[in-house]
């Protein structure tokens, strides 16, 4: 990057907020070889706007960055350009506990936010993998969710409005403070899950919930995967769980290694109920009656189980890394998909685990192969993708750079879709500087990306 541009950035941000240091750049990169030219740390939306105007004039790619905990899933490696690190924009602008909203800057960490919300017995029901460090803006951009998306939906259900800096440098506001609001096209939800491809979220109006009176986790151990599937199906159909997770034997063994050791071996089902005391008690009673081996957990015991559940991928992946794929199939096809996928994985001889947000019909497939060695598992993945497809579902690989499966899925939406997506991209980003490495649009703006 030209020195002159660095100077201009320093003028906008102050010299301490524009970093070209190797280490810092490396920490904001997604591969060993491709690094950004500089990392900037704006302190307010006006600075973000000024940086984007400059980048637009100079044709420099810009990529927003929160805590970086999810970046690998949504971004491809990119050489050059600017990283806009938002963690210095971390204030609560307004906590209106009476209306159950909080207007916050995008860089506030979720841990900090939840601590503040708890003073009035409220919380923001988004629980990504790293619930302490990750930023609110990152959660929104990544369309984050946790196990409770069964009960409450993913992050787009928990935001009411945004302040967004468009790549043109314009600062716009979407939505507002009320739950009902049809003034503008719903860009608030549209930007959720846009992975930086359209603009930079600088502030968000969060919709909060009261902390439930009671919350209970129930764990059900099963010798056979088939039994666990049948139980999960019945529990989804007969009760109203907030979270419903199914873990196969391999996944349960990883949770053991992650420090949570329920006595039994085999598959497991984790269920959460929350709400009013009498309601939770009667739901839990229902489960205990039908599954006498169920263990009821509250407070620390429950927290330990969920902490281990969040560690599933990192512990499975270890030092050497792992490929993670996601499948979605109709609820009624879950049994067949899980059973046949497990058989397929056993035949492949690879270390592999299945963990499912069962109630949402979403299955994570973990494969013991480094993402760089994806070729080694590609055949297995392709078979599983065909299986999902045959059952009316789809499969994508979350943490590799090959977007072929995704592109095929999107293209099947109709031949006009790519053109429409390009026009939408241009409406937000006429100069095409915004996160060209965002997986969400990479296969639209550059065909060759699909087959990289």
């Amino acid at each position, binding site marked *: 990057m030209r020195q002159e541009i660095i100077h201009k950035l320093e003028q906008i941000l102050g010299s301490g907020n524009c970093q070209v240091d190797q280490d810092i750049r490396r920490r904001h990169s997604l591969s060993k070889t491709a690094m950004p030219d500089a990392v900037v740390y704006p302190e307010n939306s006006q600075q973000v706007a000024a940086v984007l105007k400059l980048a637009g004039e100079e044709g420099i790619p810009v990529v927003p960055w929160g805590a970086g905990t999810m970046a690998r899933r949504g971004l491809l490696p990119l050489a050059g350009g600017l990283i806009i690190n938002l963690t210095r924009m971390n204030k609560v602008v307004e906590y209106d506990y009476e209306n159950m*909203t909080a207007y916050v800057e995008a860089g506030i960490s979720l841990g900090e936010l939840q601590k503040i919300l708890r003073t009035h017995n409220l919380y923001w029901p988004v629980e990504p993998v790293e619930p302490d460090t990750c930023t609110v803006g990152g959660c929104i951009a990544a369309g984050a969710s946790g196990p409770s998306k069964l009960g409450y939906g993913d992050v787009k259900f928990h935001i009411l409005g945004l302040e967004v800096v468009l790549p043109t440098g314009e600062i716009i506001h979407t939505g507002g403070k009320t739950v*009902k609001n049809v003034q*503008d*096209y719903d*860009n608030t939800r*549209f930007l959720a899950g846009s992975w930086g491809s359209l603009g930079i979220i600088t502030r968000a109006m969060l919709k909060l919930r009261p902390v439930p009176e009671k919350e209970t986790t129930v764990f059900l151990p099963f010798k056979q995967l088939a039994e666990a599937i049948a139980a999960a199906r019945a529990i989804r159909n007969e009760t109203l769980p907030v979270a419903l997770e199914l873990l196969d034997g391999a996944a349960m063994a990883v949770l053991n290694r992650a420090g949570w050791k329920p006595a039994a071996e085999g598959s497991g089902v984790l269920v959460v109920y929350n709400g009013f005391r009498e309601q939770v008690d009667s739901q839990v009673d229902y489960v205990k009656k039908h599954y006498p081996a169920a263990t009821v957990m509250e407070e620390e015991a429950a927290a330990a189980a969920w902490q281990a559940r969040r560690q599933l991928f990192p512990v499975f992946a270890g030092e050497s890394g792992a490929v993670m794929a996601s499948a979605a199939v109709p609820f009624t096809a879950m049994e067949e998909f899980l059973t046949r996928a497990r058989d397929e994985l056993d035949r492949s001889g690879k270390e592999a685990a299945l963990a499912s947000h069962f109630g949402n019909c979403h299955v994570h497939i973990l494969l013991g192969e480094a993402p760089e060695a994806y070729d080694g598992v590609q055949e297995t993945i392709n078979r599983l993708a065909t299986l999902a497809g045959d059952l009316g579902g789809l499969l994508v690989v979350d943490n590799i750079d090959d977007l072929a499966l995704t592109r095929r899925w*999107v293209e099947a939406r109709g031949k006009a879709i790519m053109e429409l997506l390009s*026009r939408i991209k241009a409406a937000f980003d006429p100069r095409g500087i915004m996160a060209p490495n965002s997986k969400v649009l990479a296969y639209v703006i550059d065909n060759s990306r699909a087959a990289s």
Partner: protein
Amino acid sequence: MVDQATLNELVKIVGRENVLTSKVSLNTYMYDASLVYGQPEVIVYVQNAQQISAILKLAGSKKIPVTPRGGGTCLSGGAVPQRGGIVIVMTRMNRILEIDPENRIAVVEPGVTNMELQKAVAPYGLVYMPDPASQKVSTMGGNLGENSGGMRGIKYGLTKDHIIGMELVLSNGEIVQIGGKLEPIAQELNLNALIIGSEGNLGIATKIICKLTPAPRANRTVLASYKTLEDAGTTVSAIIAHGIIPCTLELMDNKIINAVEDWLHIGLPVDAGAILLIEVDGWDAGLDRQAQQIMQICRENGATDVKLAQNARERDNLWLARRSAIGAIGRLAPNYDMEDATVPRTKLPEILKEVNRLSQEYNLAIGMLAHAGDGNLHPLVLFDERNKEQMERVEKVRAALFRKALDLGGTLSGEHGIGLAKLEFMRWAFNPEELQFLRRERLAFDPGEILNAGKTVPDTDTAA
């Protein structure tokens, strides 16, 4: 302009019996449920997506405005063909294509009414949650177009929370599939978000995939009476602050209470300044305590009388009262204007007071209904369209109400849309850059500006 050649083409696409040009027909389609109108040049009944595609291609090549229309109950002019051109009537695309109970999904054509869907899924113990008061006649396509809400919005959300996919004809006639039945796991943009609530600007939905919800197992319904609207408004926030999220929290003022009682004779408290209709639902266990807590909170906030519905008949009566409110008010004056400005919940008492003040200042009768739990007002301003001077006062009251709602951190519209009726106020809600951006976004979908153009987002020149 729609010339004879265009009419011939339209006949070729949909058949002669489905192309209407008689004066009577054109007059019939000048209106929706708002106060604006405009005459179309031709009405076309369609049966499938291919026909719509062909019509849009034709319209695009000749720059003819197109207005999609469902039940025509829109309250903001969304279904009004103010630029003339073609009105595409969707009501004959009215098949329920699929009900998949265990997957909790239904697929419908856009002309299916909300009520038809409700009735079709009820035998499976399922509900399609959005329930606009117009559900008997409003269509799923119109609900999608407006992101309609209903009485259960506070707990169960709006149309956008329950439509997960669609088949969409773009303005250039191309057909695309948006969203779908599956959990969205692919790395792609969520176009559902933009299209739901886009007032027929961004495409015409020809199939709609809906999420169904297991019917709540039980409910408790409470009626609380108050001396003043403000007391009722304060109660609303107090209930939510206790961590209770009712499925319904509706408010009616004295005018509405009396209009309904005069009509239905069901024993509403005619002396009350306001009533709240409150319902909690879900798992049976725990509902009694919630209802007791709610009744306690009502009393603490000035309720003069609080009743728990003792049986299904009592509950049905309360619901009938609420659902009949608009019709009842309609009996009091030749015209009414129903707005839906929405404010953060805690600002309810303040805006209710303001509406009262406006009613006096401009000497207009205003009945007040509200989806109070969402801060969503429905003031009904009564007037006679033939009285020009009165009409001017109505316009002034509307403007003052929107100004106040925005000043209180609220919005021009909670669920009825901007359309034509609120277009001029968009400049109060958004700055020129924001409006320009929304216009760019609109043009990305409809570069030729034929699809319900001139609505929702004001033109840039007037915006600047």
